[in-house]
């Protein structure tokens, strides 16, 4: 018996063919990975399988019977659960309330009210069973991206699924949390649950999957069996044979030129950052690493000027920073925020309006927007990062996750900054783009600019950084030249300080 067979599924958005006669079969208990460049159609396929989108054409067979999945409810009834690429949570609900979004709340004996006590007990049991610990009593709007992902994972464990679909679950997880997730996946597989796993992190894909299907431009390129799957093979197929110039790590002799950014003893009023000090010099990429909740995001936000400081100082090119986003941009500093939906993009606006927003003033004559100039600039950036869109006037809400992230990156570029504050800039983008972004940042550093690069992917940090600052519990605890560093060394530092902080 095949659990799920997809036959000739197609999907059209207007005249754009996002999926073109897809055929895939998922066997019971297999981990089937789906990979492909940004905009290849992975998320669209998932949304069809879960009844979020209506397919234009094709058939779906569930346990060898034809199935009509017309709504998320139908999919859920069959035993399909999914964690979508963009998180689907109700922001003002607590974690508990969100856990029960797609299943019935347990009722009190009277059958009238919700049994909150039972909910709490069940949730605790579930958290213990899977080794997850998130503050479920807080509203989701106060949770970090990684906590939100964990919450969705937990939610998907609430109901018995036959097929669990994970669309880029690790994009906002740290390595430690990712390991946790891989553990779950193996446990589920052992119980006979099938998994569809989508990721741009090819190491994960090669490690986890039984089979891998590669999509390109809405078509299935190939389905590889476990023994055929290698990173190189995947890249070959994803890029249509072009491959990615996997760059050798170039450690530039840091000339310790100009001091672009100086952060001293930064403390934020909300207590998330409790003492951060570091410097960024022109010509270097400074990697910042830390475990989830270490306060890296908050530190960048404070430097950029939208998180209140309690004490400490920030100097940009020697002069005290004015700690407000407009002034930061004017002084040549730009932030690529971690949360693209909430902090970086105006989803209903088009690419053009999004990308030129911070620099719109410079594209005007007497306040009138020079549309031709604007269009040229935007098209240039779209080309540089191969943003896949119908035109620069497409709303960004219609772009694939990775392409949205590219828009966020391009938007920052248009500011032509001297200092880049990048918070997880390569999340959701495909390997090729990721490597291009790395190269681009190195190029910028080569021109004398400074880059702060925050990532939860330790290997990425080690790959791109000239120097690495480690955060733990809101403090900077180490500042290391990236020479002969091993992942273990950095993790040791993180855990050492975390423990110490606990004992204090």
């Amino acid at each position, binding site marked *: 018996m095949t659990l799920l067979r997809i036959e000739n599924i197609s999907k059209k958005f207007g005249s754009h063919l996002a999926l073109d006669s897809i055929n895939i079969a998922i066997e019971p208990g297999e981990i089937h990975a789906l990979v492909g460049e940004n905009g290849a159609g992975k998320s669209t396929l998932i949304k069809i399988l879960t009844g*979020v989108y209506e397919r234009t054409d094709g058939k779906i067979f569930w346990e060898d019977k034809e199935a009509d999945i017309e709504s998320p*409810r139908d999919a859920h009834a069959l035993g399909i659960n999914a964690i979508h690429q963009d998180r689907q949570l109700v922001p003002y*609900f607590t974690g508990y*309330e969100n856990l029960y979004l*797609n299943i019935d709340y347990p009722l009190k004996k009277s059958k*009238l009210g919700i049994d909150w006590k039972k909910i709490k007990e069940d949730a605790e049991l579930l958290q213990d069973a899977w080794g997850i610990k998130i503050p479920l009593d807080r*509203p989701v709007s106060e949770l970090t991206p990684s906590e939100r992902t964990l919450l969705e994972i937990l939610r998907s464990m609430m109901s018995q699924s036959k097929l669990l679909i994970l669309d880029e679950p690790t994009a906002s997880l740290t390595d430690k949390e990712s390991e946790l997730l891989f553990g779950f996946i193996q446990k589920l597989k052992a119980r006979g649950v099938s998994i569809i796993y989508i990721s741009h992190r090819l190491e994960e894909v090669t490690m986890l999957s039984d089979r891998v299907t590669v999509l390109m431009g809405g078509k299935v390129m190939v389905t590889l069996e476990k023994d055929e799957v290698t990173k190189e093979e995947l890249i070959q197929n994803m890029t249509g044979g072009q491959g990615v110039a996997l760059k050798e790590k170039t450690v530039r002799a840091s000339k310790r030129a100009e001091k672009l950014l100086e952060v001293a003893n930064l403390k934020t009023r909300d207590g998330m950052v409790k003492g951060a000090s570091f410097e960024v010099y022109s010509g270097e990429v400074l990697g910042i690493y830390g475990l989830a909740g270490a306060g890296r995001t908050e530190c960048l936000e404070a430097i950029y000027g939208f998180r209140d400081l309690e004490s400490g100082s920030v100097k940009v090119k020697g002069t005290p920073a004015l700690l407000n986003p407009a002034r930061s941009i004017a002084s040549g500093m730009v932030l690529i925020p971690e949360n693209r939906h909430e902090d970086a993009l105006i989803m209903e606006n088009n690419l053009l309006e999004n990308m030129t927003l911070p620099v719109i003033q410079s594209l005007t004559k007497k306040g009138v927007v020079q549309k031709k100039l604007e269009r040229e600039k935007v098209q240039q950036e779209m080309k540089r990062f191969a943003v896949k869109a119908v035109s620069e006037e497409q709303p960004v809400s219609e772009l694939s996750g990775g392409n949205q992230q590219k828009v966020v990156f391009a938007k920052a570029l248009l500011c032509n900054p001297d200092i880049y504050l990048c918070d997880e800039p390569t999340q959701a983008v495909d390997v090729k783009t990721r490597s291009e972004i790395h190269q681009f940042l190195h190029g910028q550093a080569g021109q004398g600019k400074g880059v702060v690069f925050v990532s939860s992917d330790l290997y990425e940090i080690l790959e791109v950084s000239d120097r690495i600052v480690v955060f733990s519990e809101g403090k900077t605890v180490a500042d290391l030249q990236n020479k002969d560093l091993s992942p273990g060394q950095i993790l040791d530092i993180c855990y050492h300080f975390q423990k110490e902080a606990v004992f204090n």
Partner: protein
Amino acid sequence: MISSYGTIIAGVAIIVIFSILSPGSFATIDNLINITRQISFLVIIGVGATLVMAVKEFDLSIGAMASLGGVIAAKMAASGLPLVLCLLVPVIAGFVIGFMNGAIVTKFKVLSFVTTLAMGTILGGFTFWFTGGSTIFENIPDSFKFIGQTNVGGIPMLSIIMFAIVLVFWYIMSQMSFGRRIYAVGGNEKASMISGINIKGFKNIAFALCGMLAALTGALLASRLGSAHPTGGNGFFLNAYAAVFLGMTIVKNGVPNILGTLFGAAIIGIMANGLTILEIPTFLQDVITGMIIIAALIIQKLGRDVK
């Protein structure tokens, strides 16, 4: 549940001030009962508005719906039908019309603001046609006035009905899964849809209940006044939303909520009552009421920031 005390403190302050200024008239049990009866209409219609706002929609037809409910009830009473029917028919009509509002909004995915504004215009025209534009008061039997004008153990029936409605809807919205679903739809429609919640269904029900409560308000008003005016309910519209919005400030997550609406209506009612008792001229009442509301908002925010 209630996690922001700023507006509440402002509310208590108002009561204390009025009590000091007018101990013999304001701070009496009689007047307290009087106030609960006076705000009963605003609270009942406001509860309906709260439901619609909880699913992030708007119903601008509630005023016209209340007027219509009132004239239907009064016309029926005048033709000698029993009280129960006189209340039941408008309530059913309100439910159906509200459901239609919801159905148009959800089926065609159009803005509820325009839809219900247009529906309000239609209802207004219909009410006018139905009454010929004049107040209905002839031949209304005393039995019809029972609900609006009777006290039970010293407490007006209207106040009892109001508290019962508040209690029921508070329970539904905060303790039952229906309420959680309603708030989920309002909080993130897409996530709710993807989670398999029947968003259209919940929206339709919210609109239907809102229409029902608006029509009930009108019918109760007719019973209270012993007459019904073709635009008699229109005045509730803005104040009902003012009550809901004021009520949103008393919870931390700022969502429309039943107890908040009760509280908001109480503030509005107490201000009107207290300032009248103090014999403040009307224009000054307006100025004072406006300023106190703004002050309450500000205090509430300042209080939260300090925390």
